[in-house]
């Protein structure tokens, strides 16, 4: 089960991605084992086609549901870093940020990406329930007295 999750997490960096991809894999396998005509998106099919054969071999008709239950339980235990961004990242940006995070921290770290335009630039994080702002807004707030004094020099 851990092998499966490790394989999936190699190119899956966000919580949303993980949930979507797990759902796609589940749908695909159920269709394979039990039949059905549920259509899947090209991006899902593309991702599924890039998965190693060894992963598929771990699923059987009998364990498919149980294995997914275990995977979902394991997902709940994964560390999640909430990242507030000032732009909406595309797949490539997510890959770049995710890779950087994985390189810098743990390989199993998941990102929960959220949008906050009030940050102006940069980002803010929530880690284990604690918020920390590393954005330009925080820097402005930090330098507020200095900025006001500079403005006052012009006003007086």
């Amino acid at each position: 089960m851990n092998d499966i999750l490790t394989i999936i997490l190699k190119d899956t960096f966000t919580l949303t991605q993980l949930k979507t991809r797990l759902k796609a894999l589940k749908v695909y396998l159920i269709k394979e084992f039990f039949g059905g005509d549920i259509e899947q998106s090209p991006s899902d099919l593309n991702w599924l086609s890039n998965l190693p054969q060894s992963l598929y071999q771990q699923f059987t008709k009998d364990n498919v549901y149980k294995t997914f239950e275990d995977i979902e339980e394991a997902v709940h235990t994964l560390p999640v870093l909430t990242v507030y961004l000032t732009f909406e990242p595309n797949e490539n940006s997510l890959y770049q940020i995710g890779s950087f995070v994985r390189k810098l921290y743990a390989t199993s770290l998941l990102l929960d990406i959220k949008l906050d335009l009030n940050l102006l630039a940069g980002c803010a994080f929530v880690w284990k329930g604690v918020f920390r702002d590393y954005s330009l807004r925080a820097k402005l707030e930090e330098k507020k007295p200095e900025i006001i004094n500079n403005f006052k020099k012009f006003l007086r």
Partner: protein
Amino acid sequence: MLELLQQPAILISSIITLIALSLYFDEYFERKRSSETQKKVFQDTKQKSAELLQAAEEAQTNLLSEGNFVTKQLIQEYSDKLSDLIKNSGNSINSAQGQLIAFMEDLQKRSSDFEEASKISTEKRISQLFEHLEEKLSDFLIQTEQKTATSIELELKSVRQLIETYKNAQLKMIDENIIAMMEQTLSIILTKKLSLKDQLDLVYEALEKAKIEKFIV
């Protein structure tokens, strides 16, 4: 004649005629006597009336003559008394006139004296009043000058305070809004000017800083 007696109707008629004649003559004489009596009574009455009238006229004449005398006497008396009265009244009026003239002269004199005294008193009071007024005016001017100076000072102080308050309020408002204005301006500019690479670099920088600060462990 026998023939007549033999006819009773004629006899009766003759008797009745005789009786009627007798009664007529009797009545005639009776009336004649009465008329004469009446005539005599009338004559007497007329005479008596004339006598009475004469007596009355005499009496009236007497009365009139007596009345005229009394009237003349009364008029004389009244005339005398009226003359006395007029004479007395004239004296009284003359006396009263004299008194009135004397009173008026006295009054005039007093009025003149009073006027003189009043004039002197008024002049004195006016003089005092002017002196007093001069003093008051001088005091008032000094006080007004002092008050005006104080008032101007207070007004200036108030205006200065007002300017200071306004200035502080404006500066406070600017202080409060400078950052918001800057944020808004930066938000507009950075959205357009900041590239994806720059954005990603800022994220990497933040991640590294978080690691240095051991925020993410």
